[in-house]
């Protein structure tokens, strides 16, 4: 039996109608067409499905869609502002932090969440924050470099009032 409830994603409110067993990831990908979040392991091992629930990173493949009712969901599609890439998106592209790109949406959501809570992270802070996101291509080196660079870009953008 399907249930219908509202869900707020990237600032838009949608009424979705899904089976109770539907995960948030399935709801985002297959009901709302937000295919940026990826399914890599089906069970919370790889982190490719990471999204924010009320600003905190969670694994959407082991979260029921219903659990997001009345809460704010942010996905990789919601990171850019007014057509401008989030500094961590731009840095990951520039520094070679996205090879195949499949873990990238999850990496971005974990990294951007880190920069919200810790604007001046060390390399070890970044490693810790990304430890739930498996990347098979890069060996993480360029991802870590990119996140550190994005941290300084974001600090500068915020002090200049160019980023909320």
């Amino acid at each position, binding site marked *: 039996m399907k249930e219908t409830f509202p869900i707020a994603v990237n600032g838009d409110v949608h009424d979705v109608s899904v089976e109770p067993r539907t995960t948030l990831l399935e709801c985002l990908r297959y009901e709302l067409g937000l295919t940026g979040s*990826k399914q*890599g392991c089906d069970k919370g091992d790889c982190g490719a499905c990471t999204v924010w629930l009320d600003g905190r990173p969670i694994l959407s493949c082991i979260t029921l869609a219903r659990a997001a009712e009345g809460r704010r969901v942010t996905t990789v599609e919601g990171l850019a502002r007014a057509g401008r890439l989030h500094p961590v998106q731009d840095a990951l592209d520039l520094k070679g932090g996205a090879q195949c790109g499949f873990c990238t949406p999850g990496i971005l959501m974990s990294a951007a969440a880190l920069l919200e809570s810790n604007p001046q992270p060390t390399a070890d802070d970044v490693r810790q924050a990304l430890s739930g996101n498996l990347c*098979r291509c890069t060996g993480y080196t360029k991802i870590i470099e990119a996140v550190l660079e994005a941290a300084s870009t974001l600090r500068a953008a915020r002090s200049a009032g160019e980023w909320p």
Partner: protein
Amino acid sequence: MSAKAPPRTERPTETEHFSVIGKRNRKVEGRRKVTGQLLYTDDIVLPRMLHAKILRSPHAHARIKGIDARRALALPGVHAVVTGRDFPVPYGIIPWTRDEYPLALDKALYIGDGVAAVAADDERTAADALRLIEVEYELLPPLLTVEEALAHPENQVNPFAKVGNVSKHVHLTFGDVEGGLAASDEVVRDTWFYAGSTHAPIEPHCAIGDFGPEGLLTLYSSTQVPHYLHRELARVLEMPMDRIRVIQPGVGGAFGGKSEPFDLEFAVARLSQKTGRPVKILYTREEVFYSHRGRHPMRLAYEVGATREGKLTAVRAKIHIDGGAYSSFGLVTTYYSGQLLCAPYVMPAYEFDSTRVFTNKPACGPKRGHGSVQPRFAFECALDVLAERLDLDPIELRRKNLMGEDTRTVNEMRVTSNGFPQCLDAVERASEWKKKHRRLPYGQGVGVAGSTYISGTNYPIYPNDMPQSGCQIKVDRSGRVTVFSGVSDIGQGCDSVLAYIVAEELGVEVEAIRVVAGDTDLAPVDLGAYSSRITFMAGNAALDAARKLKRQVREAQAAVWDVAPERIELAGGFALVPGDQERIVPVAQAFQAAEARFGTLGSTGSYKSPGDAVHGEYRGGTIGASPAYSFTAHVAEVEVEEETGLVQVKKIWVAHDCGRALNPTLVEGQMEGSAYMGYAEALFEEQDFQPNGLHRGPSLLDYRLPTSLDTPDMESLIIESLDREGPYGAKEAGEGPLHPSVPAIANAIYDAVGARVNDLPFYPGRVRAAIAARRAAARPWKGRS
């Protein structure tokens, strides 16, 4: 006109001036990746699309007596079922070993072998329907080890095998091995075991079949070989190739794990044919482990002889390869296990005897560094033993055996550019080797290893005289340039590499290039993303096509300006005569001049490898031959915890001769990704099975991929030897840099605690046992008993 690229005798020079090549440009699809907008196969939803699932054998070896799908078909929402009977034609990536069926026909050969597939309204209904299919199995004794399989030739795992359970046997001898070993002052004799591991790309395999009303099949797949998939689809479905279109959307990692057809591609095609609707299959992560085609487990016995001065005399190898249930690329693997060892050191005599054996486990295949990572581990460890016995620094021992440039290996492979000496110098310097080797305190150590790898295999998988890579370029009067190529971007950045090359030649910004790739209807054939071939081969094809257009553009603009065409440069979005303020226009204007003069602008380019000139004329001499070889050296620094045997790699220095780095960021990415993957095989990963043949942990939790916290620091040191046949001198970077990872770590463990660990992975228990064995032998190390 010959498709073969004109042989270049002049080596490119370092002083060549480039606008795009060698710069840290963004990738063409990068912004789509960081915004989540690049479409991968599972992101594609077609109208009326059904979802299918595959029923897999719970038995490692079983005859299929009957399949009753009536209850499944009766389930509401179920549309069709296919079984092995729907696919009577066997397939295989290597034309000589077509030994598998899309779904098991008479026998299931391993736990996880596909038996039937169901298409339904949604994935969950299809999964429910699988439980309603009744399969009657007659259990056969499974053979799970190489030893068992060889001991029971009467119980054949794969009925296509010519002899018992031997998948392939190769024995080749070059020079006087017996005499060389007899005359050696020192001979290292030992055995090593390289455990199997799998690719584990983060994107699970996915395919969509869509039979249109015209009888045309469009197949979307997360493949890395659209052309070979195209061919095998035509064979198995018994359709002409011109009725099939293969589209490769974004691929979320592959590493060799998507380089042949899989059951899902055939299943979605047949189910779509039966239902008249598009059908999608997305593997679960568990299914990815069963499909496998990863690193072969190998038992390797070596005899390595040398003079007391440290010159190699002769090398002999005996190798047993656990192939799993099907051949996959196994014929090539068996050759590669011997053929790719003959550089970067001079070997006066060499012999190898390799046997690949069928067992009732998921088939092994090509994982990054196909077939040559395992022997490289054993051999580079043997060199470390040799250096110690001869009282030589391991780097010095390697220097005494350098083969140099423009030479032939003992197995007659042509070697052109060779930056291996510079690789050794670079890792020695960067790691401060001389201060560390045998000088760090007990428990800490450094190890070195070197290697070589092919820049593309010299021949296509199916013999033919056509180019290995084709390229078409269309130049528009707006200044936009479209590049059509059959290459497969799997994250390594090959679409971008083609864009850089064409942008460099035609003087446009990279942003003006559109790359149309991975679509057999739109792009000319490229053989695919395997054997590290794309930069070299597709790069040369793109260069060939671009230079033809460049000639036309310069000639047309020269006529406008009344200057000699060779004075005109195309660079940075302009056509110009250097130093002439009057003669500079946007390049689009020069394109318009060319279109006015020559008509609609377009060109084609091809690359064909040098053929017989680069290898010996013996059976197997073509396998391992390549137009150019890359070279790598690693130094690894480790800490070993005495009490537990836990190994921690502190840092890996990677020096890689990639010919020329067309984009250093992409090359470093390949070097770091390779070193990481080798490191993972050294310490973490193992494709491991229970005694009944069931995978021990087919999940990304149980199969331990290193996380960001586990992965060591890595430093990439690019060496550019400027190969004279590579595009701008470029060679491969995608697979070579993995090879020295494991032996460098093994040799570093020895330097740290004086214990040799010959079996992978270097789990704490094994390291601890090796330390205990050293103690029991009363062999103190660095002052420790």
